[in-house]
């Protein structure tokens, strides 16, 4: 473990995982908002909205994230001039957040959509019978019930998001996987311990997250 007793390496390790957590946090929030919006679009009465929602899901779900993140840098930033922060690192971070959110939102949208589908049709019929509009039906009756069956899928989406954050290394955010690469290159004699520490940190973060969401899903499940 001599690799991690060197304070320089240990700092790199910490900052790598800090980036991962920051990327995950910001993208989770954005992806949730965007995903729910997309899901609403996909079930809305307006055909154009449905089309855009479907196109979004199909495009982003079928493109490798690495490419999406590259597009964020070379397309959004360097061609369209989208400057999200003054410092280079921070700008790359936000570009990464945009890419991760756009990608993850497609999965959130599909999870919400199948969640909505688990709500019995009678619920919506009853809501309409008492005169609620489309938005009211969704907001007051359907989504609160769908939320419960969506907890478990959201758990796996969040876990995948956290792991996917490593891909933002492509555009120069020195996150955990870039740090690991660097350490491996410099310490060929300690390959196994380095991997175990990095993989172990991910496991320590994500396995409990998985169980937490599993437990929540069980607790919140609607018994029908």
């Amino acid at each position, binding site marked *: 473990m001599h690799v991690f007793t060197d304070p320089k390496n240990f700092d790199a390790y910490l900052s790598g995982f800090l980036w991962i957590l920051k990327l995950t946090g910001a993208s989770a929030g954005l992806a949730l908002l965007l995903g729910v919006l997309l899901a609403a679009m996909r*079930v809305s*009465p*307006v*055909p*154009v*909205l449905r089309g855009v929602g479907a196109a979004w899901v199909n495009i982003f*779900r*079928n*493109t*490798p994230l*690495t*490419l999406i993140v*590259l597009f964020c840098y*070379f*397309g959004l930033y360097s*061609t*369209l001039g989208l400057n999200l922060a003054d410092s280079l690192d921070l700008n790359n971070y936000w570009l990464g957040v945009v890419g991760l959110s756009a*990608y993850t939102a497609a*999965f959130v949208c*599909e*999870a919400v959509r*199948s969640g*909505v*589908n688990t*709500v*019995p*049709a009678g619920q*919506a019929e009853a809501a*309409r019978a008492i005169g609620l*509009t*489309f938005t009211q*039906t*969704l907001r007051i009756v*359907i989504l609160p019930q769908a939320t419960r069956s969506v907890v*478990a899928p959201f*758990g*796996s*989406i969040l*876990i*995948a*998001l956290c*792991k*996917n954050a*490593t*891909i933002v*290394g492509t555009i120069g955010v020195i996150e955990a*996987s870039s740090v*690991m*690469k660097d350490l491996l290159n410099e310490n*060929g004699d300690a*390959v*196994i311990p380095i*991997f175990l520490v990095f*993989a172990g940190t*991910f*496991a320590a*973060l*994500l*396995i409990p997250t*998985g169980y937490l969401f599993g437990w929540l899903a069980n607790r919140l499940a609607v018994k029908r």
Partner: protein
Amino acid sequence: MSSSSVLYDHPGPRARLRSHVLGVVFAVGLVALLWWIYSKFDAAGQWEARLWTPFTEAKTWTQFILPGLRATLEAAAVGMVLSLAFGLIFAVGRLSEHWWISVPAGAIVEFFRAVPLLLMIFFIFYGVPFLIQGPVPAFWAVVVGLTLYNGSVLAEAFRAGIRSLPGGQSEAAYAIGMRKSQVMRLILMPQAARAMLPIIVSQLVVLLKDTALGYIVAYPELLQRGVNDLAANYGNILAAAMVVAVIYIVINSLLTALAGWLDRRTSTRGTRPAKRPRLFATVDSAPEGGTTATNPQG
């Protein structure tokens, strides 16, 4: 795409008008946005012929994109077969009544689900050679990485599928004298696989996309050859990325469509969990209308 959704009434004249207006406004906004992107790209010279002519040359296709696509499909195909096998074995292992099988199987599945594929491929390529005293070809680093991760996700999908089956299925099978292995193989697995088809397929799409991570170990797949190497020759990274993205989207859509067709074909026979009336009729068939999570790795 009829209006048979139960979420809103069959639109009357006013609702139709409103939805048309909304649709037009939104469409105009969308076109404006696309036009703005187009002109910005134009101003940045992204539509310049020199960036795009490489794609009219046969060499670009025969020496960069197609070999890359082939390598992607090869890794994906082998990875798919191995992950399905891995998934089946570990699903059964985790359901075992013996703790010394189920606990290690569970631990392995949980571990590989939690470790980013990027880390895994990197470790297999650079770390494992120190263990086995021999080189690991980039192909196997990618395939084994894909197998361990996607196989673990599939194992969970299979397990959930088996557990979602009515208990009467296995009881009836035991009653007619089947052994455990027969019950699993002949009764439970076929039904679970069918019920979980949407998830299985979306996981296979994920696997195909994840082959793109092979570029970190210089595995010559589509992203490496079609974007990185091509751009090193012609300096057209954005153009190359667009072309390659379209290829990925087409292939993955085909795979999804194939799954939809398979699902429709198989769902006419045998038992499936009874369908409750659906909330909205506009839901496409599998895998988008799937009942559980799809997993967005990579």
